[in-house]
């Protein structure tokens, strides 16, 4: 399972391009910097009020310099601190080029569910609704199925939604999907998986990218 998370993060790291302003959610997305090509220079945004954070200092982390998950970070040259309304203004007004969020379910029209499992723990929504609404491009990361094998890419989400029609790409350890107004398209297979594997583990219907065959 740990391996699947690393595979997803590794593939997701390729989505980042030099110059982008990027917000990474908690969970799998937080692993992405470990796989980022050093020549790819992006500015990471943190909801608590920081644009341009870098790796945690090796010693003596500063309690007053942390990311939105509460872990210590550093600030890169050109980075800035600001209050929470400026931070979310940036998100809602489309100044975040790419948001990559962990997910519980994604439906074939791009509806995202990632904040609540009724009857279980309800930690709250944090900034996910705004990132889903405002980021120029939203990618959802998740393991392809639940531990019990239940598919998480679905026709209609069975969980309360974070936002509707917002996910543009899904990356799992099995495949990469794109979503547009025509619905879901299987864009890439991850190493070791066939189109048939994906069909067997995906509830929603999907089209095949030109580059793929059954």
């Amino acid at each position, binding site marked *: 399972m740990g391996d699947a998370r690393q595979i997803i993060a590794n593939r997701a790291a390729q989505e980042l391009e030099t110059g982008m302003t990027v917000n990474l959610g908690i969970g799998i997305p937080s692993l992405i910097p470990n796989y980022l090509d050093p020549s790819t220079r992006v500015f990471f945004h*943190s*909801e*608590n*009020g*920081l644009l341009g954070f870098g790796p945690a200092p090796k010693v003596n*982390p*500063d*309690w*007053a*310099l*942390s*990311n*939105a*998950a*509460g872990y*210590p970070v550093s*600030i890169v040259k050109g980075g800035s*601190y*600001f*209050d*929470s*309304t400026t*931070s*979310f*203004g940036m*998100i*809602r007004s489309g100044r975040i080029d790419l948001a990559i969020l962990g997910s519980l379910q994604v439906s074939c029209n791009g509806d995202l569910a990632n904040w*609540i499992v009724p009857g279980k*723990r*309800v*930690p*709250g*929504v*944090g*900034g*996910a*609704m*705004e990132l889903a*609404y405002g980021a120029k491009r939203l990618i959802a990361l998740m393991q392809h199925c639940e531990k019990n094998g239940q598919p998480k890419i679905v026709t209609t989400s069975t969980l*309360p*939604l*974070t*936002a*509707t029609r917002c996910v543009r790409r899904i990356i799992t350890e099995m495949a990469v999907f794109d979503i547009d107004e025509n619905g879901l398209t299987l864009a890439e297979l991850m190493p070791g998986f066939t189109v048939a594997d994906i069909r067997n583990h995906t509830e929603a219907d999907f089209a095949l990218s030109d580059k793929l065959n059954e």
Partner: protein
Amino acid sequence: MDRFNKVADYAIIKPLFFDGMTLLFGGFGGVGTPPTLVDCLIESGVKDVHLIGNDAGFPWIGIGKFVCLKRAVSLIASHIGSNPIAGELMHDGALKVEFSPQGILNERVRSGGVGLNGFLTEIGKGTLLAENKPLVTIQGKEYLYESPLTGDLGIVYAKKADTFGNLVFDKTARNNNPLIAMAAKTTIAEVEEIVDMGELDPEEIIVPGAYINYVVPTRGINWKWIWEMQGK
């Protein structure tokens, strides 16, 4: 009260806490929540408090220490995941929690703080969080109405203050403190350093002293990272 010297000690500010009050607190995951003022809140013995802030902190940091004492009756926040005890209290019905999307929550506090009457947004439309929120139609399009938040008392943390209450913050400990500072009837700033008027650069002041009623010196942060507390 001397409006040009708002420096106070904890004996002066303790009577500002009262049963049933609405308390706005600054901080994000405990970073930037005024630790000494939270201790003071705890020591004051007040109960039935209505809390408004970003989150429930950690059980040992931020507002979390107070939440765990079951003397808060409600909390408006964006998440409580970092404080499992808050979750338990919510499930037991001992703490009423209203979730607001994080940026929307900040804007609601700001709306109250700058004397506006709420705003319209599409964030949250079609989700659970839209329940019980008025819908407003403008030019044929429906928006959620988000109400302003204000309170009786606001507590914030800053790096430096001058005696007028002008505030300067410290990196990501700024977070929602500048907004919380505007939204309460009375606002107390806990600070690391107090300087004379004229010693802060007027360009670097983030919260003008007009919003601040009292300035108290911190007794120290005593920060614990989550990995230092795990298993304790």
